[in-house]
């Protein structure tokens, strides 16, 4: 009994190995992608130029692919794999094997795509919009990354299914449930990008077909592109809902409501891609507005999340004797990196979410669409809220997996890192938001636009972005120091994998939450409802297809 209890609170060492393999790739991507980010801000300040014929749009592609696709997917899969192992009692050999195959397939795909980018055969940015035509190996590499992530996700689903079989009538462990929701959402969402890559872009780049339908390809991409951002966000929510309460010494406000909010994210993350296509031709404005309404439905689980988190903070504070309206705020463990690092991320989500409301607001999007405001927006959501939470997770998860301890010194460095990040991002993202409101475009190298007066007003903001970018790069160096220390040098010991309990454990989550036929059915119905008619319209009224173009600079 004692043994099995001990085994349960620790991730099986064989599972730990696979999670760590993911994290090595993720943090390598962070190192290289972060350097590219620094170089971009320096170029765009106008004070510095790239040496050796390296092209701005090439490093922009590297930055986007590494940070948006590689860092995130590898970290999330590594974290969720460990969370499922920790809360279900470990993966089976079959699941572990599936996970390893998935890891290697993703890694091979990443290397294929990276090679083509380095050879300047694929300077198409991480959105690879046709009719920019990259080398076919780039598209094949991306296919491998997606297929690998499916296998990685299948490992989690297999273990979840086994747990359900062994525990009939029981609601699954909360963290496993959340991991499976995110995996399922990811699989449904990536069907879109897989469809455009396999049926459109690969045959076209191989020369099997001459032309591509641009709008179909973009629509399939954005069917995937928006749930992609929720795929990044939900693991952070897993930490906020189910891990942070334990770190502060409190309880989960409500296990059932946490599950309900994750289900709502599954339902409303996918049929909403048109809000990325609001300013484009060829899509009926009524359907755009319909998807805008569906987009805003995620406000409901977001409000539930905000309520739960702060309720659980307040209850903990009051249990410690805090009084007054905000007395509980002071007693939170501000000296614990495992808490404060994700907390800064959480707080950043307030302005980040507000900006997101503007972006998705139908005609209001015209003010900011494709301006650098948007870049500023997702550097608050992904590159602050999500990434700081990931850093906060790694500060206990990496030593847990490597059998080491988070030392006082590393804890302190972690807190410093988060503040450095916050300050750097305030400069960079703040300047991006303001420059965007003045019309400064995103994804552009330094330019005076022929001496235009308006463009001259943008340059001070670009200098501020370079200042912020430099501070952020310092933050990346710090996090790499901590990661390497925790992976290889920290003293041996036991670091807890915190898993919180619900405030009312006797109140069981309704079993309907685990009814996948129901939730997948509603998901499919919503997707069909939101996409069938406009998609038929797009295909029926399609113009002649586009041949490919390679307009970027080559070696």
């Amino acid at each position, binding site marked *: 009994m004692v043994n099995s209890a001990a085994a349960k609170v620790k991730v099986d060492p064989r599972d730990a190995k696979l999670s760590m393999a993911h994290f090595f790739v993720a943090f390598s991507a962070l190192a290289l992608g972060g350097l590219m980010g620094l170089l971009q801000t320096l170029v765009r300040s106008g004070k510095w130029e790239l040496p050796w014929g390296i092209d701005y749009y090439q490093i922009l592609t590297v930055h986007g692919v590494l940070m948006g696709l590689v860092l995130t997917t590898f970290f999330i899969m590594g974290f969720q794999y460990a969370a499922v192992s920790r809360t279900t009692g470990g993966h089976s050999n079959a699941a572990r094997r599936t996970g390893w195959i998935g890891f290697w397939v993703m890694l091979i795909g990443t290397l294929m795509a990276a090679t083509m980018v380095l050879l300047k055969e694929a300077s198409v940015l991480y959105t690879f919009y046709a009719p920019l035509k990259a080398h076919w190996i780039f598209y094949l590499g991306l296919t491998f990354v997606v297929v690998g992530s499916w296998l990685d996700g299948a490992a989690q689903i297999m273990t979840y299914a086994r747990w359900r079989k062994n525990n009939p009538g029981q609601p699954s462990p909360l963290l496993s449930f959340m991991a499976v929701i995110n995996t399922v959402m990811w699989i449904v969402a990536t069907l879109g990008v897989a469809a455009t890559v396999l049926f459109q872009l690969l045959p076209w780049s191989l020369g099997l077909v001459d032309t591509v339908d641009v709008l179909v390809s973009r629509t399939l991409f954005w069917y995937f592109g928006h749930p992609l951002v929720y795929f990044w966000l939900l693991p952070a929510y897993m930490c906020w809902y189910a891990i942070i309460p334990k770190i502060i010494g409190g309880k989960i406000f409500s296990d059932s409501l946490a599950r309900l909010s994750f289900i709502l994210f599954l339902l409303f993350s996918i049929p909403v891609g048109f809000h990325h296509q609001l300013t484009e031709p060829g899509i009926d404005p009524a359907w755009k507005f319909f998807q805008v309404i569906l987009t805003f439905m995620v*406000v409901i689980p977001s409000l539930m999340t905000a309520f739960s988190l702060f309720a659980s903070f307040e209850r903990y504070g009051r249990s410690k004797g805090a009084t007054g309206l905000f007395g509980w705020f002071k007693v939170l463990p501000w000296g614990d990196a495992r808490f404060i690092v994700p907390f800064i991320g959480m707080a950043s989500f307030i302005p980040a979410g507000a900006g997101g409301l503007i972006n998705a607001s139908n005609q209001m999007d015209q003010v900011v669409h494709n301006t650098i405001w948007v870049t500023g927006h997702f550097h608050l959501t992904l590159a602050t809220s999500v990434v700081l939470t990931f850093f906060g997770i790694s500060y206990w998860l990496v030593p847990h997996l490597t059998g080491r301890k988070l030392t006082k010194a590393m804890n302190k460095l972690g807190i410093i890192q988060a503040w450095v990040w916050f300050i750097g991002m305030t400069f960079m993202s703040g300047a991006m938001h303001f420059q965007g409101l003045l019309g400064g475009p995103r994804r552009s190298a330094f330019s005076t636009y022929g001496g235009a007066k308006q463009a001259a007003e943008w340059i001070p903001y670009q200098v501020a972005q370079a200042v912020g970018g430099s501070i952020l790069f310092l933050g990346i160096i710090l996090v790499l120091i901590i990661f390497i220390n925790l992976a290889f040098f920290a003293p041996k010991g036991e670091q807890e994998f915190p898993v919180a309990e619900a405030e009312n454990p006797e109140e069981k989550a309704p079993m309907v939450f685990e009814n996948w036929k129901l939730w997948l059915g509603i998901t499919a119905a919503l997707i069909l409802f939101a996409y069938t008619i406009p998609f038929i319209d797009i295909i029926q009224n399609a113009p002649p297809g586009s041949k490919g173009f390679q307009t970027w600079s080559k070696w």
Partner: protein
Amino acid sequence: MHMHKFEKIWLTFGISCLVIFLAVIGVSAFYLGNKPPSCLTTVNPEKVDQTKPFDKPGLHKVEGKDWDYELVYVASAFSYNPAKVEVPLGAKVKVIATTKDVIHGFEMAGTNINMMLEPGYVSEYTTTFDKAGEYLIVCNEYCGAGHHLMSSMIEVVK
């Protein structure tokens, strides 16, 4: 499943705000006519130069329509045709644009004129130029090596 009273109040308040907010943008879009640019006209991307109205880029006075002028742009890597236009102050203008090659952006900096140009599709936006001055048009969708050099200028003159 139990829901705390405060959470019910919080969600009721939040969802009510959401409904009002969506109603406001819906009415603005469909009743007041502020829909985002969503033109459904198509064009053969390889025959743009031979297709009306793109065979004659530039500003044209029109009669008998809801707008006074049509301002036609053809985008291609990495320029807009025309590169510079003068528009009389107060003119109601329909901007009509398309691309001959890859996807481009069409953004008049500091205004609401912001639309994607996609091969095979015509993008349109009708607006009144009621402030004099120079307006920079930039490409805001990555289109290749010269993306940051792609611009045009509108001068609104009295």
